[in-house]
């Protein structure tokens, strides 16, 4: 029962803090541009305003278009229930398998890309193709580091890996550190931030598949995309930096874990924001060079694992 409450709490937490972290990223961006910038709560105000706007869609679009934002958000809520965020173990163990998580991420991607084609807008379609190909190029780099970590810890369950790392039964090895680096880089590509904001690319593609959304649907989609960022960062933090996560259930430990978790997110989002604002966009066709390099790091971690380093 406690686990179910924790799972629902995690899902709602991700839902509620997602706009805060995108607001913080905006604020850091403004500071780096030497601007005053908006309040860190600006994204909440934006969402509230979008909710009062009209929901417009083109007559050529179909049910896919209407269904996509809830499917996206629903998948994010589901994934948020499974991954170890506050605890070392997964709140719902059967959602916390590495293969399950990676394949669950394909569900929103499928609908996101399909909706882009469904709107019939040309830029949205180009954005769809990019979204899918980023997925193709990054998926091996997401899987292999987790596979290596799983082999080291003896389980493909993210909670079991996190527990093994946090409790010290698995000492930090070179292979594990490289796997962590590769996974962090792969997660960063998945965030869709500069220099890898391929699908939504504001200047080139006019927001890609988001282009045809407005009002409440856009608000939901924007929230869901921020949720995905929080989830990817939490996944990295939960699996590779599980220190401070709750090992045994108690209210005090939970509160401590919550504070530690939010601090970890804050630091990681801060780092992401700094990277995001100090680079320019990668040319789309050169993306594969970056992703293969990340994959190369993952292969190296696998090689080091094989010789037991």
């Amino acid at each position, binding site marked *: 029962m406690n686990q179910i409450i924790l799972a629902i709490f995690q899902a709602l937490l991700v839902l509620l803090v997602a706009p805060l972290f995108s607001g913080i990223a905006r604020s850091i961006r403004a500071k780096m541009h030497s601007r005053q910038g908006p309040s860190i709560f600006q994204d909440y105000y934006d969402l509230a305003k979008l*909710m009062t706007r*009209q*929901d*417009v*869609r*083109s007559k*050529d*679009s179909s049910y896919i278009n209407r269904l996509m*934002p*809830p499917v996206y*958000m*629903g*998948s994010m*809520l*589901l994934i948020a229930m499974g991954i170890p965020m506050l605890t070392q173990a997964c709140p719902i*163990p059967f959602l916390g*398998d590495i*293969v*399950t998580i*990676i*394949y669950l991420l*394909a*569900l929103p991607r*499928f609908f996101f*890309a*399909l909706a882009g*084609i*469904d709107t*019939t*807008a*040309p*830029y949205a*379609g180009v954005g769809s*193709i990019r979204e*899918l*190909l980023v*997925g*193709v*190029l990054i*998926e*091996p780099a997401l*899987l*292999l580091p987790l*596979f290596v970590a*799983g*082999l080291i810890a*003896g*389980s*493909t369950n993210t909670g*079991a890996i996190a527990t093994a790392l946090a409790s010290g039964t698995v000492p930090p090895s070179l292979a594990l550190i490289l796997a962590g680096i590769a996974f962090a880089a792969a997660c960063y590509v998945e965030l869709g931030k500069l220099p890898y904001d391929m699908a939504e690319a504001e200047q080139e593609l006019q927001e890609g598949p988001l282009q045809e959304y407005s*009002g*409440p649907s856009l608000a*939901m989609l924007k929230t869901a995309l921020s949720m995905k960022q929080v989830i990817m960062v939490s996944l990295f933090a939960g699996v590779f930096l599980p220190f401070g996560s709750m090992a045994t259930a108690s209210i005090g430990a939970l509160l401590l874990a919550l504070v530690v978790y939010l601090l970890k997110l804050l630091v990681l989002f801060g780092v992401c924001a700094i990277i995001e604002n100090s680079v320019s966009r990668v040319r789309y066709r050169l993306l*594969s*060079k970056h992703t293969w*390099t990340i994959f*190369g790091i993952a292969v*190296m971690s696998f*090689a080091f694992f*094989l010789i037991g380093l």
Partner: protein
Amino acid sequence: MSAMSLLLASLVLSAAGGTLALLTRRTGTVSKSISCIVGATAALLSSAAGIIAMVVPSQSISFAGAFPFAAFSILLDPLSGLLVTVISILAFAAWVYGISYFDDYLQFGIGSIGFFMNMFIASMLLVVIVDNAFWFLVFFEMMSLTSFFLVIVEQDEASIRGGFLYLVMAHIGFIMIMISFFIMASMAGSFDFSAFRDLHLSAPVASLCFILAFLGFGFKAGMMPFHSWLPLAHPAAPSNVSALMSGGMIKIGIFGIVKVAFDLLGASGGQVWWGIVVIAFGAVSSVLGVVYALAEHDVKRLLAYHSVENIGIILIGVGVALVGWALGLPVVAGIGLMAALYHLLNHAMFKGLLFLGAGSLLHSVHSRNMEIMGGLSKVMPVTALCFLIGALAISAIPPLNGFVSEWFTYQALFDAAMGGGVLIKVVAGAAAVALAITGALAVTCFVKAYGVTFSGVPHSEAARNAKEVPGPMRFSMILLAVLCIFLGVGAPVVAPVMQGVASSLLSGSTVAVTSGTALVNVGGTSMVDTSLMALILLATIGFSIGLRALLAKGGTKVCDRAWACGYEPDSSMTMAPSSFAASVKLFFPRLYRMRDQLTAACLRVGSFFFGAIGTARKVEPIGDKYLVDSTISLVDSIGEATRRVEGGDSRVYILYIVAALVFFLVLVALM
């Protein structure tokens, strides 16, 4: 009634249906109705037989045959039960579908279509249940011949070309299987499979038999690099026959590999390297199959290439099972084989569904070219929804069936990597990466396949005038779509059955694959629960829909057209299949160059035989020509390969360094 008598009744009905279809061929509609109704009844009987056979002990029966050297004996064990189930469910869907769909084929002689289709299904059933090498080969040949006639039904140039290539390839495979069986028969002194099972062959002889059978059945299964006939032959047949071929017939290739390795050579024991070879072929097939599928704009060719991909995924499972079996790791063998068999079943269902969907498109738009479709989900909502379910299932999206079997495949790879030596770890890691790439590419491919046909705006007059397909066709698609959902969400019920089939091949060693409603991997303490996942997913999506409805205050509006940055949008601006292909080619140019070379090689084999017919008249040094040609192309390709090695790209050099590192590490670890 016992499973055996149900199955025999079904075979008799098929024979009767085929004969009646021929007798009534003058009046096409009568002939069509008779063959469809009798065929569907026969399929119902045999599917009941198959389902029973999977869960009860094996049954066998023997008839006095015409040949003293080969007894006509039938064995219905769990493995053949699974194949009988797969073939029969597809056959049932195909026959019901045919009630309406064959109306488009009346001018091609429905009597012979009905006859050959009945014979085709019966021969597939017989191949999987006969227990004698001689009869196996006879029915295997009959299966190839009857399906050949179904491929060339339309009698245009493309179908004859595809059919001929198919026939040639089927026979190359057939010869290899025959040699393998003859070696075993000469050792055993009998054609009976029961005699083969008692053989204790030395490792080299067993390996020879296995490799010959693996390659021979590989031709039938359409694995790389013997796949080129598949995208030419399957699309040419009527769509419900394509569903049977892609969903059912190529599985007989897998059946053969599994049967030879675990059943016939069971007493001789397997070798680890067999498994590694199978995994390697599987991994290459899965990645290249989907890469090539992406470049297609003919919907049936796209699906045919996806069969190559899924055969690859099944082979990865079979290979892991072989490795686990040879190393004495029962969990690895059990989960690997179970994953392979589960994926075999799943692929039959969603590929059957998608081919029927393609048939509906063909029926309504009168074309297989996706470039001219678009916007069809508005006029064909049932077809669209079924196709979407099939697309999600084949993309292994949780909680549908494709995900379940791929999850088990990953788990088997993980367990193998945990339990095996360095070499096994490397192979398992590489195969897991190949699976990951395959999964992501399949998502891409099916967003394309659904998107450009059912979403967007119509790209032609034919697409604008399309109508929803008639009831029987909708029924078949809905049936298979429901099965796809059931095999995913109902996995806690299905997985133990599949495990039972696998354990019957692994001398009865069982592995727990479920715990409560969860699917578990006892080797890695991992679990997943598709039924609860489906419930939670419905709840969270429902919550999101409710949230949007609750908080939205602005109302909705439908506008006339999408925004195209100030341009006047028209239908030519929306996404076309080639937009996808162009992007993928951007990232994987070398793989596509390889496809062209493979296809050319395959066509060369085909045209060799085609040419041989003409050469009877004019004496031309063909052998010389091909010998010289192939030598030249070999030299060319070596030159090309060395050029690529010296690519001058720093990333490539890094890759070489990593590869060399891994190689030497493996060498050190092995010594």
